[in-house]
């Protein structure tokens, strides 16, 4: 009987696969090479899709805070027609129409009603959402997260091309490069690399979350001349036991969760934390997590802030 059931199940999988291709949607808005004018924009996005725009986008919906920040930073703020609920920077973005985004659920209705000529998606969004928007006839560009600062410059230039602000995007990339180079130059000489514990969440003070290897925090701490104690853990959002933290005994504790209520004073009340020298010597600092978690131009602000904390003597 068991075997019969298995066969039946396999048969059903087959039926599913058989009716799959028939359900393929009609090709979305025909944007072929032939119909593209010489001035058209043709790029491959982070999902390997070819995205073609006949002219620079004038009504852009941003699906992630990082995308909104990039658009405003390269001077395309006036072209943004809508943004996700977490886009709170710059101030001007807050007054734009909200398209949702809580628990990864976006309102397709709102997006369609805004009549965007480009939806700028990010890694926060799922391929299913990209497909859904594509089937609704929208032009979607999926901007992959950069893995380093060089990737950030490329992303700025990509968004510049899509929005027709390529000149400003290139200028911004240049100035960011110069600022990063300035930090690099000062850090080049340092020999001491103070250790940092970057706190993301300590709802359970016995095993707080910290930024693990591959995260922007990890990347920027290293670049700012420090050592991330979370670098030895696994995963970008990594949990560290208090035991490990006591052994690591970091020189600095940065509170990336300050926005959620963590204060330097509150650390004294956490059982077991009083042994940490960062607490005893008051090297616990509040840190603006948005400058180091969103892959936008403010990553460089975050880098500079970190460098000043880690090596104040070099930035007098």
């Amino acid at each position, binding site marked *: *009987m*068991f075997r019969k*059931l*298995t066969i*039946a*199940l396999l048969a*059903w*999988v087959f*039926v*599913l*696969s058989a*009716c*799959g*291709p*028939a*359900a*393929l*949607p009609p090709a979305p808005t025909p944007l072929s090479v032939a119909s593209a004018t010489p001035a058209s924009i043709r790029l491959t996005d982070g*999902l*390997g*899709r070819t995205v073609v725009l006949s002219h620079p986008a004038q009504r852009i919906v941003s699906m992630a805070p990082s995308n909104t920040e990039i658009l405003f930073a390269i001077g395309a703020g006036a072209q943004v027609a809508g943004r996700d*609920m977490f886009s709170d920077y710059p101030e001007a973005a807050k007054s734009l*129409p*909200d*398209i*949702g*985004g*809580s*628990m*990864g*659920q*976006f*309102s*397709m*209705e*709102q997006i*369609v*009603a805004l*009549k965007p000529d480009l939806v700028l998606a990010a*890694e*926060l969004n*799922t*391929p*299913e*959402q*990209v*497909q*859904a928007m594509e*089937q*609704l006839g929208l032009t979607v560009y999926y901007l992959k997260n950069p893995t380093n600062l060089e990737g950030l410059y490329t992303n700025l230039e990509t968004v510049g091309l899509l929005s027709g602000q390529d000149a400003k995007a290139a200028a911004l990339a240049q100035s960011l490069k110069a600022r990063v180079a300035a930090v690099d130059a000062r850090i080049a000489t340092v020999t001491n690399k103070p250790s940092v514990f970057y706190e993301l969440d300590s709802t359970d003070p016995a095993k707080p979350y910290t930024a*693990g290897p*591959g995260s922007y925090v990890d990347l920027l701490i290293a670049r700012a001349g420090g050592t991330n104690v979370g670098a030895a853990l*696994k*995963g*970008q*959002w990594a949990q560290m036991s208090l035991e490990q933290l006591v052994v690591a005994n970091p020189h600095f504790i940065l509170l990336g969760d300050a926005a959620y209520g963590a204060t330097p004073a509150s650390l004294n009340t956490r059982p077991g934390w009083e042994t940490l020298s960062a607490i005893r010597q008051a090297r616990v600092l509040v840190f603006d997590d948005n400058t180091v978690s969103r892959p936008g131009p403010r990553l460089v602000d975050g880098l500079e802030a970190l460098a000043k904390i880690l090596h104040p003597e070099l930035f007098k």
Partner: protein
Amino acid sequence: MQEACLTQTSSMNLRPYLLNLLFLLFAVLLSLVIGSVFIPPAALWQVLLGNTSTEPYKTFAFIVWNIRLPRTALITLAGAALGGSGAAYQGLFRNPLADPYLIGVASGAGLGAVAAMTIQWPYNYWGLMAIPMAAFVAGMLTVLVVYWLARMGNTVPTTNLILAGVAVSSFATALTSFLMLQSTGEVRRALGWLLGGISFSGWDAVLAMLPYILLSLGVLLFCGHALNLLQFGDEQAQQMGLPVNRARMIILVSASLATAGAVAFAGIIGFIGLVAPHVVRLIWGVDYRRILPLSILTGAAALLLADVLARVVLSPQELPVGLVTALVGAPFFLWVLRRAKNQGHW
């Protein structure tokens, strides 16, 4: 199968079906009318009349037909599947607490989906179908494993099924949590899925789940009489001429198939499968020939209403519909039960 599951003709009373059908129609209409974009009634009337050549009617028509209609269809199918399989499970296990997830379909499907999410699939039809397919297959495999574990010789006692189901479910849930803790980027996606968030829009998902749900619910509709007999206990049902083991297997597989189809595309949506059959039973009595079709209709309507709520409560934020069914469904269920208790029957 003809012998295992057959409906005895009985004097048909159409009133409950008509009332439930009206309720479902009302819910479908509401689901088309209400969404995160507000469409004034006058404009909606124009859209329904087809006067859509000018703005803003053009956009409104697009939203109603291309976003709300496929979503309404998906929710209707998922709700129907959960309501129908919930009734079947409750009858099969003779247990008012049984719901479609009792023997592990949901936790198995969750494991399959989250496991599939850890892989980078190519962006094309098959890559996008990989997750629901994995959920579907893993959900069905879990039921088969439970069935196999619960088997004693030629019979499959329901107690064994429940115990094996609980154990296998816990194991699958633990594995799912482990995978989620290990991953970095997929947690948000997985969480949305496990909370019953609809990530699919358009007709692909509807077309892909349609055959399973139609077939499995179709089979279940013929099993009302068998379920009625099973209420007397296995021995007596056997004496009354029901091939108990075979009937039970057919019901179990059909109900699980419907549930797996729903879960694969709509995520894990709780309470519909538990509440719908209870409400039907309280209002229309204990005859499974009636409970099954009415639970299908009620499940569909209830999930549609929950989805409307999910879309408007925090508009333009959309809540995962599973969150709404749990938040609204649990108190509603308690209220229904208290009322029933006060009237002298649970």
